[in-house]
């Protein structure tokens, strides 16, 4: 501790950390502004922000998972070769001879699945709290783009191990794309670089997975976070609807030299509000965020240590598994496609994405923003929930209730004795 204090006070330490560990409110504000990593967030935040129930931290968890994916993904790139005759061997080498190879691949796999899940949950949270309403409509659009990018990253990464699971999931996914009217077959050809999954598809997916989509992702995430600031932080209940208890706190100095930093265009920010509603981001917000980071790392590590990422036989274009299933987040679609290729594979996803994009411009009513399941939004919430339940039910059916030839199976029943071979 003493050494740290000395370092902090030294010329070098001051040049790096500027403020050091803050000891006054002024320094707490300065700490936030003078640090590149922290300046994304305001110096002071509303007390609501600190309450877990406000956002459940879903967006931040997604961001942390993206971070874990970036680090583990770069490590995996040192060993992976995007060639059909070497990719699978690289997986085996990671598992058997590369130091920490298996756990890093596991972390990447589980973090990827978790990220898809948490991005979806984050979307639901934003809907149920009406947080897409003015002035946050555009950020909702950016969020939809990020959601699609997440699916794209997961889908392109799915092929890379080049095992049966990868090969046939991508084949099924590409076939769903081919159901689009007019451009469908061309679209499939564009995705795969050919008519079937092969070397061309592998290099395409690899390039998209490690360069194109991550770059887009980084850019869009930056826009997303910047917009959160510009739109006045988290959506907050309108005046008078804030049911947060007012709490007596220690006396705060009234000379708010940090006040300027909170100036934004928004009307919903703390302007004109009682300073009692606010706390300093350092340490209250930052500490909680760091705790959440630890928790996310712990969960991903836990999964990675105890459950291995799946790796089936090497991809074989002659022996499709029965049934061949898409990645889990597309299984709802695949289930729909099994009823009707056009309605399930084209109309349903198109309507869904269009509806999500249009949502903030259709639902222009200002009330209900910033509160969970606001009474005034009963209709919207009900419609959304119905769609959500349908999506979940379809996905569950596609995941566990579908067996050979996409026929019904009872997952709890003993699987039929599979004859060996193919």
């Amino acid at each position, binding site marked *: 501790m003493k050494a740290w204090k000395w370092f902090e006070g030294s010329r070098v330490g001051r040049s790096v950390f500027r403020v050091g560990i803050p000891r006054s409110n002024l320094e707490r504000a300065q700490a936030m502004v003078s640090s590149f990593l922290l300046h994304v967030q305001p110096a002071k935040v509303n007390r609501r922000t600190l309450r877990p129930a406000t956002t459940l931290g879903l967006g931040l968890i997604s961001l942390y998972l993206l971070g874990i994916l970036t680090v583990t993904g770069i490590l995996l790139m040192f060993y992976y070769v995007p060639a059909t005759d070497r990719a699978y061997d690289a997986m085996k*080498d990671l598992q*058997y001879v590369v130091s920490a190879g298996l756990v890093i691949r596991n972390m990447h796999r589980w973090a990827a699945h978790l990220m898809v899940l948490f991005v979806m949950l984050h979307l639901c949270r934003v809907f149920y709290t009406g947080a897409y309403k003015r002035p946050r409509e555009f950020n909702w659009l950016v969020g939809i783009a990020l959601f699609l990018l997440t699916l794209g990253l997961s889908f392109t990464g799915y092929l890379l191990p080049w095992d049966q699971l990868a090969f046939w999931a991508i084949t099924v996914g590409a076939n769903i794309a081919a159901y689009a009217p007019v451009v469908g077959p061309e679209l499939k050809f564009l995705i795969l670089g050919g008519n079937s999954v092969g070397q061309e598809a592998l290099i395409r997916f690899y390039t998209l997975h490690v360069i194109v989509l991550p770059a887009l992702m980084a850019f869009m995430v930056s826009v997303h976070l910047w917009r959160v600031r510009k739109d006045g932080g988290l959506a907050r209940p309108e005046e008078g609807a804030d049911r947060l208890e007012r709490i*007596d706190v220690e006396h705060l100095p009234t000379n708010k030299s940090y006040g300027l930093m909170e100036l934004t265009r928004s009307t919903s920010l703390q302007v004109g509000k009682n300073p009692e509603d606010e706390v300093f981001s350092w340490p209250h917000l930052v*500490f909680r965020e760091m705790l959440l980071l630890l928790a996310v790392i712990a969960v991903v590590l836990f999964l990675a240590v105890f459950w291995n990422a799946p790796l089936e*036989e090497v991809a074989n274009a002659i022996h499709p598994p029965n049934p061949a299933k898409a990645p889990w987040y597309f299984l709802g679609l695949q289930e729909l496609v099994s009823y009707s290729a056009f309605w399930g594979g084209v109309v349903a996803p198109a309507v869904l994405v269009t509806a999500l994009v249009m949502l903030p411009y259709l639902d222009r009513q200002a009330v209900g923003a910033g509160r969970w399941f606001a009474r005034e939004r009963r209709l919207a919430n009900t419609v959304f929930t119905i769609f959500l339940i349908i999506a979940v039910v379809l996905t569950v059916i596609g995941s566990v209730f579908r067996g050979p030839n996409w026929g019904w199976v009872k997952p709890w029943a003993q699987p039929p004795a599979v*004859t060996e071979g193919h």
Partner: protein
Amino acid sequence: MSLENPRRLYPAFILLGAAVCILVAAAYYRDEFRQWKDIQRQFIREEMRRASTPQQRLLARNIPVQIRQVVLPELRRVDRCTTCHMAVEDPSYGGFPQPLAYHPLHDQHPFERFGCTVCHRGQGHATTTADAHGHVPYWDQPMLPLRYIQASCGQCHEAADNPAAPELARGEQVFESNGCRGCHKLGGVGGVIGPELDRVGGRRSADWLMAHFRSPASVTPDSAMPPQKFSQADLEAITLFMLSQTGASMTGFYTSMKVVPSAAQGRHLFQQKGCIGCHSLGGKGGSIGPALDDVGMRRAPEWIMRHFRDPQSVTPGSVMPKFGFNESEVLALTEFLLHLRDQNLALSLPSLMSPVERGKEIFRKFGCAGCHGQDGKGGVPNPNAKTGEQVPALLHVADGYTREELVKFITMGRHQVDALDAKRPAPPLYMPAWGAVIEPAEMADLASYIFSLKPKGDDLGF
């Protein structure tokens, strides 16, 4: 309110921090402490125990604990078996318990050239026992049980006349003499009723094959194949032969193994080049050159080989022309002559046989016995067939067909077999059209053979 006090969060920091540390330690433990390292240390301890001089002890102590592997780019394999099986090349570990046992008989197949899995199968990449031995989900090449190991010889070497793989040769013999080809194609030759067998050895396990031979329907519910009544030894031999049919294509250096000169090839060449025009075997053939029955005993292999290259160089004044054989042909022919002690090999030269004998050979070659029974005696079930629910025997064909009608019938086949009961499923076995497969000359011999099956003195007097 406590929300304001960051100290309230410290326990959570400590708890989560500890959780992350423990998990990192667990990940490290899983990564660092591996079974193969213990085995390598066991090997080092054994070497230390055996060391008698300080120098040897030092050498033993300095054996590094590390992954060992054989990289075989041509075979697209990386075999890490020697990571645990460290003593495979050290005869002093003969009889030592696995995994540190010595591997005998590897002189002709050095590990650095062949690795391990090309013969033993299993998962060469893997470095844990279960994964490496391959009896795990998603690995369809588990280790071949040792009693079937000769199946692997068949990937590169001819099954027949391979003295090191008698079981494989026996398996091939069982396959050919029981008429399996009548329904199954192997190497492009055979019937079309059952599936092709070129890759069956890589897809099916020994247990599956055994169960299938005993009762095909038990593992393939709608199989038309009749149960086979093999002796236990024959059953194991044909299972082994089936396991050898992996369809694996070897490249480069390994391909050359495929053409290891064999007596069978020599026999083929002997026939093809018309040697019998001048030389005789078993009393049949020409008399310009000497009889060759005992040449393998009279002459040294080197002499025979020189003779094939240039007859006059060892027998001045010989009238035998220089045929210009290449080295592999010279070896094959020499091999053939040396094997002539095995009378069957010599006498099975087609040109030395009568039409009936040749026909019998063709009957065997195309697996007719698979459906019509050994020597055409019938007895093979064909459920719901009008002919007594059996495939017809051939003993009385001579009474019902002229030679031309018979040849035509075999050429065209009969795809619709009359059913006993129209309500039951159609009989599974039928007569394929053999016209595209059996050549006309062979067809004539086959007809002669089938006509010869009629029991003597059994004229029904039509």
